[in-house]
């Protein structure tokens, strides 16, 4: 296969690199004393070991990605599932149609809403919880860490059951608090204005743990000497946090922000299990819209185009974030 010759030179070069530069003394000696396996054998072994990955990658990643790209330029529909060659090539028509599609624009807006409110909340609360856990409450620390992390490893269906109880307007947890003080409880999931914030609250609760763990790791990587030095210089808690913790935590902050943003741009599960996008599409996100177009209505070509638009958006935002946040560290 031509792919092999195309990539073959690279692994060999990487291997030769550190061997020669890091220990110049050992290099010639080794070469003299022991016969190194020939380039060809080394390459073959490399390919052999990476074959399982390459096969899986090709079948489950590269192929679908390419097939989707091709599909996005066709009118691939239900009939084409059995007659794929009958799909018509329609160029950029799907993409052009997307931007006149009210529903898609709404889902794009909803997703943006979700990200703009959800990401800062998740990051901020994750940081707060991590700092609290890292500094205070020594004895119950493990308990709280597990407590905050539990939602991350809980299946979405279980989460949905709990949150439906919390949000239920007639006998839910929050409704109970409202009636206690004599107010009419709001109908969280049934209201167009409240459904999205409810969804965000649920997502923040669910993803806080991931971010918290990242921050705890980051916080513990900050050398105690630095903190002690700061304290000796008379820095207060707030000062230490602003001048020491935050700057040293910036790589973690960057990473957490980027992965949370990507995750939220793809948000699917929360609206899928809680509202199915309703009421009146107020919680319809791009991913959910894509799923419905593709698997409910079989507009495969159109759904593929949607996937690529989402991909470009995610890519753009990620690059932008890396630029903005990285520059600040200098």
């Amino acid at each position, binding site marked *: *296969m*031509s*792919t092999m010759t*195309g*990539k073959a030179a690279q692994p060999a070069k990487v291997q030769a690199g550190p061997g020669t530069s890091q220990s110049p003394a050992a290099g010639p000696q080794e070469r003299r004393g022991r016969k190194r396996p020939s380039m060809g054998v080394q390459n073959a072994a490399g390919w052999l070991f990476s074959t399982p990955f390459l096969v899986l990658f*090709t079948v489950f990643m*590269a*192929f679908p990605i*390419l*097939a989707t790209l*091709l599909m996005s330029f066709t009118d691939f529909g*239900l*009939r084409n*599932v*059995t*007659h*794929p*060659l009958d799909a018509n090539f329609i160029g950029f028509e799907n993409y052009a149609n997307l931007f006149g599609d009210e529903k898609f624009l709404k889902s794009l807006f909803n997703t943006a809403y979700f990200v703009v409110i959800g990401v800062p909340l998740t990051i901020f609360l994750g940081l707060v919880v991590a700092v609290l856990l890292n500094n205070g409450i020594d004895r119950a620390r493990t308990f709280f860490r597990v407590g905050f992390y539990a939602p991350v490893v809980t299946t979405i269906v279980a989460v949905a059951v709990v949150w*439906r109880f919390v949000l*239920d*307007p*007639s006998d839910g947890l929050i409704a109970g608090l409202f009636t206690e003080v004599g107010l009419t409880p709001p*109908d969280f*999931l*049934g*209201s*167009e204005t409240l459904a999205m914030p409810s969804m965000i609250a649920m997502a923040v609760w669910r993803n806080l743990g991931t971010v918290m763990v990242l921050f705890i790791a980051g916080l513990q990587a900050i050398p105690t000497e630095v903190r002690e030095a700061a304290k000796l210089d008379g820095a207060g808690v707030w000062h230490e946090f602003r001048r020491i913790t935050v700057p040293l935590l910036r790589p973690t902050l960057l990473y957490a922000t980027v992965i949370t943003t990507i995750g939220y741009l793809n948000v699917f599960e929360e609206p899928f*299990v*809680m*509202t*199915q996008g*309703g*009421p*009146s*599409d107020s919680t319809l996100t791009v991913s959910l819209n894509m799923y419905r177009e593709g*698997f*409910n*209505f*079989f507009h495969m070509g159109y759904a593929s185009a949607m996937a690529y638009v989402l991909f470009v958006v995610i890519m753009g935002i990620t690059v932008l974030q890396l630029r903005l946040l990285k520059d600040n560290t200098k």
Partner: protein
Amino acid sequence: MSRTARTASVGIAVALAFGITACGSSGADVAADKKQTLTVWAMGAEGEKLADVAKVYEKSHPNITVKVTPVGWDVAHQKLVSAAAAGTMPDVAQMGGSYMGEFSELGVLEPVDTKTFDKKDFFPSGWNQGEVDGTAYGVPWYVDTRVLYYRTDLAEKAGIDKAPTNWKEMQDLATAYQKKAGTKWGLSIQPSGLDTVQNFYSFLYSAGGEIVNDKGEAVIDSPEAVKALKEYGSYFDKGLSNKSVAPGYDVVKDFGNGRVPMFFGGPWHVTLLNEGQPQIKGKWAVANVPADKSSVSMAGGSSLVVSKDSEHKAAATEFIKYLTDAKGQADWYERTKDLPANTAAWTSGALSDDANLQVFKKQMDTAKAAPSLAKWTEITDKVDQAIAKVTQGKASAQDALKTAQSQIEGLVK
């Protein structure tokens, strides 16, 4: 990646995409009396029960091994589409009425052998849902329809001692339940979300409306449809029905504890209530859908289809015959409580004398199946949206249906 590598991988992707599907078998058909294995897919509870029936069948047909694969309803549609795409459809498959249009369009179904199966033996709506453009592709296996379930004990408390027969009586009862019997809601109907239309059908059809008529024209903005949606919406305006119902909500528990005294349910709810809510035994009843012009409910159910690529069509036809004749259907009812699609099966046992079942049977005689259109899911989605607009107070029935009408016109062509 080098240029050649890139070209190669694109080539492979294209070849795979378009080649994988081209390998459907087209071998000769095996005679029914030869030794063979029949593969059958059935969904949900049916899938599990069918294996027992298959064992009985194997005893009388020792040359045939029936391999039943139960498929969950939630994944059934996608699995069938994937199988159709890959040319790996089972010999026999159970299909919901709403699938028929799609799968006949995919060209993977064998037309029903009308010499073996007679239209006259089945409920018209059962047969109709297996028919696409005048050709039958599915043999009706079981049917279902929706009727009104209501709490008789609470109705008595509210001062009403008979089942509602028309729209006004139903709304009066709902109001009385709430006002006099202290129930939380009056009637449970779905306000929005996927398949809301299933609750709306009883109103729409009873008023004499349709979504798409016999000629294939969109008619959802007809005066009858508007009237039906106004009535439907009024339950939400008046606070008789819950405006926000979570996806997957199951009404059975709330019916049991009396928060919801009325709902439209299928035959399976009888079993669910008997087994899950024994405390209300004898305190509820079923009634035909309250009428406007007439009492017409939706018809659903499942058909059995034979795959076009099957090499065991003769045996498959015999097996389906076994499942759908009067005897097989009565036996199936005993096992699953699914309503027989074959009318002859209704002449004996519980099917002929149980009062609840007679309500279902009467409803079945007029029940209306959805047309078998490939884009039906998409069409009903537009109706779902119109219903949501009305129940959430965003639009009048007239305006919401006008929008739906123009959207559906583009889908029926």
